[in-house]
């Protein structure tokens, strides 16, 4: 009888954390990656990783508040038990990474230092210079290498995952991969398949994501029958450096360390920015959001920067939209010490020293909150049952998803420095659950399945590949189609969304998908053929692009990163106090109606023709009841007051108000 094995797709933080933990649990692991895992996209994460810590705890912080910040920041669209479990593991995860040798910045006394990130009032973010993701990834990579030497982990670098292998009952029994050097296509039996393939930013053409972030692995899993949740929630990072090949991230930590965002009050003021007096500068985030200042949550910062440039016409340049992100008031040594890495990036790619000259930045597509739908098992205390084989499992038995490619942790908007936490956490939590699954198989192994199951899956992918290679005649250019797809998606499905534009975009994307079927290859070779690999990943972008567009089209509300002006609830602004109060009451009524209608995850199922079929899933908000997200809204304080009075009145009269809450206290409807 063959030994049980687990296949992990992707070696970023999530995949490596899972591989390392599984190895410790004496499970044999195969690790497949498009690139040597040390070069995964996690290296691009700059700012840090969040957890409650000894200092914030004494300032009144606790895990519950980290949960609250995360779900409030995410506009309550994520199930709360997994978030609760994650924030409780947070301090332990950072301790673990510390023991693995991550060079976290230190205080004078030798403790780990923390900085403040968006969407919270506490300094929760541990960091290693401005390359925290790189440092965390290297520590995990080194551990996995240790297991590789021990014979527990086997790596398949430069392999492309082509899809899962499902048996007649729909259980995942393996996957098909392709060697990117020899182009060999091979079936890999496995008893659990863990997809940890990251985000899908390349659907937008240029983004802050790396070249491997095509979303193809998630898309192939989705096309094989896995559900995809909240596709329309795509985070646009407020601050990136525009470039011809990529939009390079300028970390939120630049603002966390005191960076100020501003534009000259005079449109396109030609003066040297440093010579513009304070009074003639418009620090629009600080003025509009006095409480959070430059550290409002990302969706709000993004929208404000976008608006100030487009609607208000205050971009610092006329031809290229940008605002100033200014660090020049901070001492050079502080900047070098705390932000060195990211400032070097700016200097290297723009040829200007950001310690001397304010940076010019603009928003860019950055993170997919949505992803493969995954399950969890809720514990009695409202967290997760550790070791449950349901944790992180997709709707296909034996198939798991972790890290950015799952939809689980960030709801409608992710808080800065929460992604490194969710990636490592989901990798660590999936391992004991998979171990339980393997034990339940009582020694059985996927490799004992009939070989025809694997051979037919392999042959299907081989035939598709061979057919693509034959398309060398005149036809469409995949690289140009990719640019067009990126332009459509960026224009319609990012910061501000309109139904008519989304509908038109769906038509355009459908047309591009048809044209992509006629792609012509400039390389028909059978050795390191990057042309055919790219073309395949392009073809797989369309089903996800459609799920994003359709989800966005049908969601007629504003929630987190999804902003539709036609459905925005305006602030409360009237001179007469009684009228103001009436408006606030009306606002709260409308909010309740909207919440009832839209506080649901969009769940896409892929039809055979690549079209998404959408349904909606209730969200488990049993721990922190949803409340209006009021960062900076006009009249927000009054709305909050009315809201609190209403909640208090309901609590006092349970027979009226608590029906909803009780229903929501049940695990979400889509689970069983």
């Amino acid at each position: 009888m063959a030994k049980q094995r687990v296949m992990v797709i992707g070696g970023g933080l999530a995949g490596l954390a899972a591989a390392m933990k599984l190895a410790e649990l004496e499970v044999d692991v195969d690790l497949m990656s498009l690139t040597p895992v040390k070069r995964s996209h996690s290296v691009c994460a700059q700012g840090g990783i969040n957890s409650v810590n000894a200092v914030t705890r004494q300032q009144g912080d606790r895990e519950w508040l980290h949960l609250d910040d995360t779900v409030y920041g995410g506009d309550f669209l994520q199930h709360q038990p997994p978030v609760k479990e994650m924030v409780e593991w947070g301090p332990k995860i950072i301790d673990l990474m510390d023991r693995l040798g991550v060079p976290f910045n230190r205080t004078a006394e030798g403790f780990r230092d923390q900085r403040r990130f968006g969407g919270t009032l506490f300094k929760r973010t541990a960091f290693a210079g401005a390359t925290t993701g790189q440092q965390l990834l290297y520590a995990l990579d080194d551990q996995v290498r240790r297991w590789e030497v021990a014979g527990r982990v086997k790596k398949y670098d430069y392999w492309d995952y082509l899809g899962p292998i499902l048996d007649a009952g729909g259980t995942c029994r393996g996957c098909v991969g392709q060697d990117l050097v020899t182009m060999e296509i091979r079936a890999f039996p496995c008893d659990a398949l863990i997809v940890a393939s990251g985000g899908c930013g390349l659907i937008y053409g240029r983004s802050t994501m790396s070249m491997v972030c095509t979303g193809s692995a998630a898309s192939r899993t989705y096309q094989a029958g896995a559900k995809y949740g909240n596709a329309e929630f795509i985070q646009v990072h407020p601050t990136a450096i525009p470039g011809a090949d990529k939009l390079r991230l300028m970390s939120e930590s630049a603002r966390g360390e005191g960076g100020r965002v501003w534009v000259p009050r005079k449109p396109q003021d030609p003066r040297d920015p440093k010579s513009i007096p304070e009074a003639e500068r418009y620090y629009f985030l600080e003025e509009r959001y006095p409480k959070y200042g430059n550290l409002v949550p990302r969706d709000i910062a993004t929208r404000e920067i976008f608006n100030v440039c487009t609607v208000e016409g205050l971009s610092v340049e006329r031809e290229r939209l940008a605002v100033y992100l200014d660090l020049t008031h901070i001492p050079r040594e502080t900047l070098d010490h705390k932000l060195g890495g990211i400032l070097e990036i700016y200097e290297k790619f723009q040829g200007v020293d950001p310690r001397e000259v304010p940076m010019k930045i603009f928003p860019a597509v950055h993170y997919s909150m949505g992803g493969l739908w995954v399950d969890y098992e809720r514990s009695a205390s409202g967290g997760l049952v550790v070791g449950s084989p349901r944790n992180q499992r997709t709707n296909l038995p034996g198939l798991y998803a972790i890290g950015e490619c799952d939809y689980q942790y960030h709801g409608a908007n992710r808080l800065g420095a929460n992604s490194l936490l969710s990636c490592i956490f989901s990798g660590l939590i999936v391992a004991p659950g998979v171990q339980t699954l393997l034990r339940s198989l009582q020694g059985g192994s996927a490799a004992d399945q009939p070989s025809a199951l694997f051979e037919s899956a392999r042959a299907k992918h081989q035939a598709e590949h061979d057919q693509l290679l034959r398309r060398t005649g005149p036809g469409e250019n995949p690289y140009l189609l990719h640019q067009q797809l990126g332009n459509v998606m960026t224009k319609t499905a990012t910061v501000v969304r309109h139904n008519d534009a989304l509908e038109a975009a769906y038509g355009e994307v459908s047309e591009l998908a048809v044209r992509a079927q006629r792609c012509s290859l400039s390389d028909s070779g059978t050795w390191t053929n990057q042309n055919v690999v790219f073309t395949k990943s392009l073809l797989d972008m369309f089903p996800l692009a459609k799920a994003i567009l359709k989800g966005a089209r049908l969601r007629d509300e504003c929630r987190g990163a999804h902003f539709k002006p036609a459905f925005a609830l305006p602030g409360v602004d009237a001179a007469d106090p009684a009228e103001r109060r009436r408006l606030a009451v009306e606002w709260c009524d409308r909010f309740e109606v909207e919440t009832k209608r839209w506080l649901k995850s969009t769940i896409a199922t892929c039809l055979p023709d690549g079209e998404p079929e959408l349904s909606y899933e209730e969200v488990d908000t049993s721990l922190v009841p949803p409340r209006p997200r009021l960062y900076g809204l006009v009249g927000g304080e009054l709305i909050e007051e009315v809201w609190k009075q209403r909640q208090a009145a309901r609590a006092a009269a349970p027979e009226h108000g608590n029906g909803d809450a009780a229903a929501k206290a049940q695990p979400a409807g889509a689970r069983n």
Partner: protein
Amino acid sequence: MIDTPHDNGHSQPKTFDVRILRQDEPGEASYWERHRLAHEPDMNITSVLQRIAAQAQTADGQKVAPVAYDANCLEEVCGSCTMVINGRTRQGCSALVDKLLAENPGEIEIRPMSKFPVVRDLVVNRRRLFRALEKVQAWNPIDGYYDAGPGPRQSQQDQERAYPLSQCMSCGCCLEACPQYGKVELARRPGESDAAFKARENADYDRSFVGAHAISQTILYNTNPIGKQTAGERLDALMAEGGIQICGNAQNCVVVCPKSIPLTTSIGLAGRATTLRVIKKWFDR
């Protein structure tokens, strides 16, 4: 997201040529190929290779397969796109076209790294680099991944010493520039299994020079409060065949390192530590 062209004030040529040393497969002859591209603002070598893939024809109009290359983060933190550009080993993403054309007007020359076997065109096989990290056991030998509280306290000075070493992205620039680091290229024997080939390759890699990057990673872990518990084993690995004794002190590594890692300082420290270890072992006999 919106990136309209802008004039940076300098006059630039309308087109420029890129000469690329190509190779179709391992063991085959390499050949030069010339591509002509329209000049755009803010171009780097990655965008050059993207344009070449999209146009798929040479300067004289011949249809060709796109040039194969490695690239991922495009922010010079992943190490993928290392190649030899205008004679210098560096990352394609951070090599800016206007600067390269200022060095050498009209033409840019790109070659694959010469110390690693070419897979195709600019793609090289750098597995030997990761094997070296296995050899020196570049990891913290912690008990396990269950919660065991925080790691030891560390001074700011110690963190500031460790951090630069920890930024090594295994790109291989230091190896390309090293006169002692020679290419090791094995061909698979007919019928040889994956495992057998890998074992034979590892044996050859282990006999050859580990290189500056691995020596520096040894110092990183040997100075870590947890890692130093197995410092002796790492030093033994550095003293084995292919170890630090091969370093000829040319100091090219530190010059070409894109992350300005103090590689020669690490080599100096490792040299002293290995010598001490030899003496200590001699006395302990």
